[in-house]
């Protein structure tokens, strides 16, 4: 397990240093998020109270759609010069490729959220008065589940002709339970309701994260065999 983790960190480190050098994917993700926030900030009047109800949904719309842009590139970038075969022929456990990619994608999406969520609050003139710790916990838990499933499906879709189209088609239905829980829990924290009401949703998200992490971890080997 120690070797799997250290190899995963090596792969994630390579992906992230590559990304910070080219800024190809993260740039697209940030621009997309900014555009969505800008469009919605014009569509809704910030002085209206109903805006509060829109913000939790918007946080997850930004996360899922900008994240999908990054996920698309995750394994497609390994197809150039057949680098994926290079990784698979290396003396590493194949699941470390999955873990490494998950780590790198999670870091990228978290960076985009760190930039876009404060901008969203700013443009919607929203003053955050809820529990920041719970809010971060909910956002990270939802994002992790999304990345766990998304990374797995991006590996599955990478070899398909229209992988950019295939990934959302496969991913969005699978994310439905997670997103329902994430939006509900975020709403509870943002409208400053009882935190205890959010715990049930957070438990559902944690269960989803663990279940899919285990399943993807076990099944990833079979995807690689077919690629």
């Amino acid at each position, binding site marked *: 397990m120690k070797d799997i983790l250290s190899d995963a960190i090596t792969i994630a480190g390579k992906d992230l240093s590559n990304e910070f050098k080219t800024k190809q994917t993260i740039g697209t993700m940030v621009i997309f998020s900014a555009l969505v926030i800008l469009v919605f900030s014009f569509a809704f009047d910030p002085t209206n109270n109903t805006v509060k109800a829109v913000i939790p949904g918007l946080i997850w719309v930004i996360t899922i759609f900008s994240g999908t842009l990054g996920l698309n590139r995750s394994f497609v970038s390994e197809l150039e010069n057949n*680098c994926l075969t290079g990784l698979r*022929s290396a*003396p590493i456990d194949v699941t470390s490729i999955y873990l490494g990619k998950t780590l790198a994608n999670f870091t990228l999406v978290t960076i985009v959220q760190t930039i876009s969520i404060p901008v969203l609050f700013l443009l919607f003139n929203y003053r955050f008065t809820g529990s920041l710790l719970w809010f971060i916990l909910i956002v990270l838990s939802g994002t992790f589940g999304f990345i766990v499933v998304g990374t797995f499906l991006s590996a599955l879709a990478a070899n398909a002709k229209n992988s950019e189209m295939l990934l959302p088609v496969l991913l969005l239905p699978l994310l439905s339970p997670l997103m329902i829980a994430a939006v509900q829990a975020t709403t509870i924290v943002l409208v400053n309701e009882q935190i205890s009401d959010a715990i049930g949703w957070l438990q559902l998200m944690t269960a989803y994260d663990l279940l899919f992490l285990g399943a993807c971890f076990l099944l990833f080997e079979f995807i690689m065999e077919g690629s």
Partner: protein
Amino acid sequence: MKELEIMLEIKNLTKILSDKLILRGVSLKLNKGEILAVVGPNGAGKSTFFKCTVGLLQPSGGEIIVDGEIIKKKSAATRKKIGFLGHESFLYSTLTPLENLRFYGKLYKVKSIDSKANQLLKEVGLHLFKDVPIRSFSRGMLQRLSIARVMLADPEILMLDEPHTGLDQDAVSLLNMIIKEKKNIGTSVLLISHDFEQVQALADSVAVLKKGKIIDTAPLNADLNLEKMKDWYSRAVSEG
């Protein structure tokens, strides 16, 4: 007489892909310090045979024994003994040669990666380009860097899939020199090639793979020159 140490033994290897029998009981032995060339017409199953041997594909039947140990999907230690040079370079075009070697060095748990990588880059003549992203490299330069990548972990078995393709004469000489040096220190080499001249120059023995079966093998010695080898191959393929 001292018995030769077998580095790689393939027993009755079969592979079915999409209900099609690609490999039909391939059996081969590769001794320590031996260079064995596998030749054959297109679609004979050479690349599938290599992928199974490296562990990229799970064989449908048969056994692959590396240095006395049966290779399994998760046998990382066994895979470390194999250096695989494929059709493609397996290199990241946004990274520099040094960064590529550092990355693979970490995965192969190479000690003192930087000094080893720098030394290999000097050997393959890319030291001056060590900090240039490889996206601008020619096919020959990429192949030189791929050779450095393969040598990084000092593999005991080299598996080279058409390594001379796209190389200029200098690079061909360099590659042949490296292969011979490795042979001299006991590295075993399994070579797939369509280039009979290079096979003649490097290999100790040659096997013909056709329709997923080894149909003939022959030792390469002074009696079997290039012309005779070509005749022998043509005969084997037409009869097999």
